[in-house]
């Protein structure tokens, strides 16, 4: 290559080129490359950021796009202002053991179950924060199983993930497409999950030793939740849902000590299953891990009575909220009835298996 040509070529690749000292500029190879890269990342950024403008919690719930644990955030954010007396938090043990609409029907106080499947205490803390933006609950009930989750650096990752989710809401709500396949009419009963499956407790599956260790980070989160509640005049109460798979006397002993040290109330429903008439052959949906609808109704009845007896909770059945809550309650009763049918069929089958057909 002649030296002049080579020099020209080098000039071309250095960026913007002046033509014989004129002001006009031409885009050289390198400049073109720079623009191309800019365009690529610009489109990518737009693709990640723009959906976030549309994906606000309100719009996600309005158009039925919020799924799974994000659904909890959206639904709580969309509850009528100052309409929740009791907020229930925790993992799946919480949303199978306390039904807000049943408590409404019996006692008249309003509740919302913000439990998340496999939810960590950090997530419960986030749900509490989201709720306190629009609500002033009198009681916050925390189901204690999430306290035993190991941390294993999960909190650090969670913070990084949380930041990414905040920067790009598309990431948090990426499962919105699943709503296309969701069965029409599937409702959330103020966070409670209705399940009519019956799978009796299997002693073989319960044998494993459970860790009684509660990590420092989880205790810090619990302390932070207590502080948040106190600041807003709410009482934080710990409860352990009936679950022979998740709880042992050692675990509840540790929880009692934690509650005592932190000055919190604690109720262990595992030690009261007889009073609640829980039948472990009928009231669990997965061999003693979670309660089914039959067990959930029993534990809600017991816990509801206990709450009303021990705390000052209002009866709002004559308030302006009543119309909407009664409508939801009617729907809840219908769906619960269908789920209970399945439990009753299982009960009948068991009876036939045990004692044969009636003469």
């Amino acid at each position: 290559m002649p030296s002049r040509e080579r020099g020209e070529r080098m000039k071309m690749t250095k960026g913007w080129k002046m033509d014989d000292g004129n002001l006009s500029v031409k885009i050289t190879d390198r400049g073109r490359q720079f623009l191309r890269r800019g365009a690529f990342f610009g489109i990518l950024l737009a693709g990640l950021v723009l959906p976030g403008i549309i994906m606000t919690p309100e719009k996600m719930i309005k158009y039925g796009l919020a799924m799974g644990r994000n659904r909890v955030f959206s639904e709580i954010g969309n509850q009528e202002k100052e309409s929740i007396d009791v907020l229930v938090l925790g993992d799946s043990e919480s949303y199978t053991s306390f039904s807000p609409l049943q408590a409404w029907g019996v006692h008249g106080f309003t509740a919302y179950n913000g439990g998340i499947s496999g939810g960590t205490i950090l997530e419960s803390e986030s749900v509490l924060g989201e709720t306190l933006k629009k609500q002033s609950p009198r009681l916050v009930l925390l189901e204690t199983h999430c306290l035993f989750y190991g941390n294993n650096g999960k909190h650090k990752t969670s913070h990084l993930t949380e930041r990414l989710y905040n920067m790009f809401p598309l990431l948090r709500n990426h499962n919105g497409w699943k709503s296309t396949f969701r069965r029409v009419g599937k409702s959330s009963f103020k966070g409670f999950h209705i399940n009519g499956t019956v799978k009796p407790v299997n002693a073989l599956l319960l044998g494993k030793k459970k860790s009684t260790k509660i990590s420092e980070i989880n205790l810090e989160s619990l302390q932070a939740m207590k502080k948040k509640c106190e600041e807003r005049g709410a009482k934080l109460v710990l409860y352990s849902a009936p679950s022979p798979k998740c709880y042992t006397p050692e675990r509840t002993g540790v929880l009692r000590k934690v509650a005592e040290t932190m000055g919190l109330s604690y109720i262990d429903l595992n030690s009261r299953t007889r009073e609640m008439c829980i039948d472990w052959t009928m009231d669990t949906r997965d061999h003693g891990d979670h309660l089914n609808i039959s067990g959930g109704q029993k534990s809600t009845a017991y816990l509801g009575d206990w709450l009303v007896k021990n705390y000052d909770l209002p009866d709002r059945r004559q308030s302006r909220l009543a119309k909407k809550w009664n409508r939801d309650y009617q729907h809840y009763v219908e769906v619960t009835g269908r789920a209970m049918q399945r439990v009753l069929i299982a009960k009948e089958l068991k009876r036939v298996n045990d004692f044969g057909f009636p003469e």
Partner: protein
Amino acid sequence: MAYNKNTYLLIFLPLAVLLYHLTPKKYRYLTLLAMSSIFFWSISGPLFFWAVYTTVITWAGGVLMDGLIRKNRLLPRELRSKPKELKKRLKRIAGAAVFAVVFALAALKYTNFTIELVASLIQKFCQNVTPGFAGMGSGPATVPVVSIAAPIGVSFYTLQAVGYLLDVCWGRIEAEQNPLKVMLFMIFFPTLMEGPILRWEDAREQMFAGEDIHEVNLVLGSFRIGWGLFKRMLISDRLNTAVGILFQPNSGFEGIMIFMTGVIVTVQLYLEFSGTIDIVLGSAQLFGIRLPENFRQPFLAKSAAEFWRRWHISLGSWFKNYIFYPVSASGLMKKWNKFGRKHLNSYVTMVVTSAICLFPVWMLNGIWHGPKWPYILYGVYYFLILLAEVMMEPLEKRLAGKLSLAWDGGLVTALRRIRTILIVLIGETLFRADTLADFGTMMKNLFTVPFRKDFPEALTRLGLDTGDWYVIIIGCIVVFIVEGMMEKEPELFTRLPERPVWQRWPVYYALIFSIVIFGAYGDGYLPVNLIYAGF
């Protein structure tokens, strides 16, 4: 930290690339070594010193052997050791070094297994003795089972160390004098957790060259990482819940659901492992290091032997180079071949030779995967299958000839592929089972009548909804179409940057947004741990 975690992909890896770029060319391997040491320490903490121990032994062994060879070469011809004598001395050094590194591996990974095995034998004869954890006597007399933690990647870097030592001993390579380079070869962070198992030749040229960061390598590396994430996050991570349910003891699945278990676990295992290897190769490519491929469309294999030349290639070739060939070329085998050809027919000689050479390969392959009976049986399973293939192939060829079917024709190839896939499905089910009893129960339940009992209702009990199944099926179709294309054009990905913008940008965006939108993350999904990192 793991390859599929945000901390690795968004913090550690970009930081490593930046630091590497800022370091003078001559010292770039030291940056890689420092980052690899941080990576190792972040996972295994002080167990890092086991890697230092193996490195020191490997480096010293190599230098000693190299010194011996050089010294011998410098001596006048009449004073030189005889080749046999030199070989003997080299073998002695290599043997001691190999013993030292393998002993560390055995002590870290197999102590518990051995104690439990001995204890269960003792228990069989003396009923008052039971195995239990140290300090937690669970019976009248307790044989202590000590909990020993193993450093990350110990099985992988030990094989690399053994390969290096044997290569130096056999004169295939010259030993490296710089211990830091040997250390980097052992614990290079992209290969640390799941391989591929490197040979010194794979690393020597590229790992220490300190090549500049080039845009093309960044594009290719990032694309490969994206492809790995696609396989993992769309399919493998999504199937994790289902696999957990299917392998629960007393899960109660029967008939076709057991067959589905084999399919699901095989797909999950393949996409988890090959997806992670894509991330590994992509990570190395960012630094201009092209590592050898570890998978080559294994489900297109026509036999189990070919499957193992396409699946976990680096492990297969390690066993071929350092176990199979040495056994085949040993004096004993030569004597047997001579005897067989003289006194028996060639078929019997060939079958017995194959059996003797394959047995140690597959036993060690099973044991290498970990101290669990299903892994050991997995090795035995493939030994028997490969031996059966050796025995059957002449007969099958004869049968195909009698039926006027071409051995390489479409029908025979299709039948052979189906048979291989069935063999693999059984193998992977065994591999994933927690105990031999669980595997036995599953095999028994496979033949329940009616075969399609509760299907497809049972599919709805696997914790996946309709949308999940669509993503899994479409994702698998995409993966297998791309793999089919790669069978014809192995450099498919490498050629992507040469394509015009209107062709390659849609591919890049489709990959990124399919991971973002359809990836199984956040919302109730539990990502699969790096399965092979446990070995």
